[in-house]
């Protein structure tokens, strides 16, 4: 199984322009920027895990993700070699890249933590103000309970879950 996520870091780069510094030496001008590091973690059912690959890029765009996913695919991270699932956050462009390279044969799991976080963010907008704090908490607890309840209710069948949802 493979997990994908990203992390931001700051980076300085030399530019072409040459400027004299305080002691009148010629130095290249440096410019800082933020870049993103895309990380892929692979783990196996026997508990082994390893950082399989990473990629630095300017943005979390589709092109960057695609590069990473494609490289992994070439190295043999494929469904026929035992890739069971891909776990990712709600980044749509990563989803597109995965769909392009792997197709729809792989189980995609959206990170529940990210999802609940987004729900909380949205519910801040819906239920504004201090007076509605308890309501917000109730909403979050119930949203959490949905995932919990299903894990008790129907253990082994997806049909069961879908039925429950419907």
């Amino acid at each position, binding site marked *: *199984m493979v*997990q*994908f*996520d990203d*992390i931001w*870091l*700051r*980076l*300085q*780069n*030399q530019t072409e322009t040459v400027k004299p510094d305080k002691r009148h030496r010629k130095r290249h001008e440096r410019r*800082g920027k933020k*870049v993103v*590091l895309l*990380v892929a*973690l692979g*783990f196996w*059912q026997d508990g*082994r*895990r*390893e*950082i399989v690959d*990473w990629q*630095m890029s300017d943005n979390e765009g589709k092109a960057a993700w695609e590069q990473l996913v494609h490289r992994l695919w070439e190295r043999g991270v494929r469904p026929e070699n035992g890739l*069971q*699932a891909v*776990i*990712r*956050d*709600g980044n749509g462009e990563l989803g597109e890249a995965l769909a392009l390279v792997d197709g729809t044969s792989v*189980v*995609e*799991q*959206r*990170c*529940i*933590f*990210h*999802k609940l976080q*987004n*729900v*909380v963010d*949205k*519910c801040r*907008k*819906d*239920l504004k103000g201090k007076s509605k704090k308890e*309501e917000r908490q109730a*909403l979050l607890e*119930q*949203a959490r*309970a*949905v*995932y919990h309840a*299903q*894990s008790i209710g*129907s253990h082994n069948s*997806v049909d069961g*879950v879908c039925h429950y*949802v419907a």
Partner: protein
Amino acid sequence: MEFVTTWRERAPKAVATFERDFEQTIAYYRLQGTAREFIRTTSLLKRINRELRRKFRQVCCFGSPKGAQVAIFLQVKRLNAGWSKEKQTWWQIS
């Protein structure tokens, strides 16, 4: 679903977010054999990111892309050594 019906009127946006790609959030039921806690969130990877960020904070701002790559490589190598089943020497994992 009970959650959706209770909250749809009071918090429409939140419910919309919750419903979007709901099928994908429960995909972990299809997989057998691994602990569900591992496969339903990216928390394993978040732990790694924390470890990487520790390095980034020390450096504050990397001088060049090459330097950043090297720092990441060293950190990743150390983490991978720590997880591997083979016996490692102390300098490989620290």
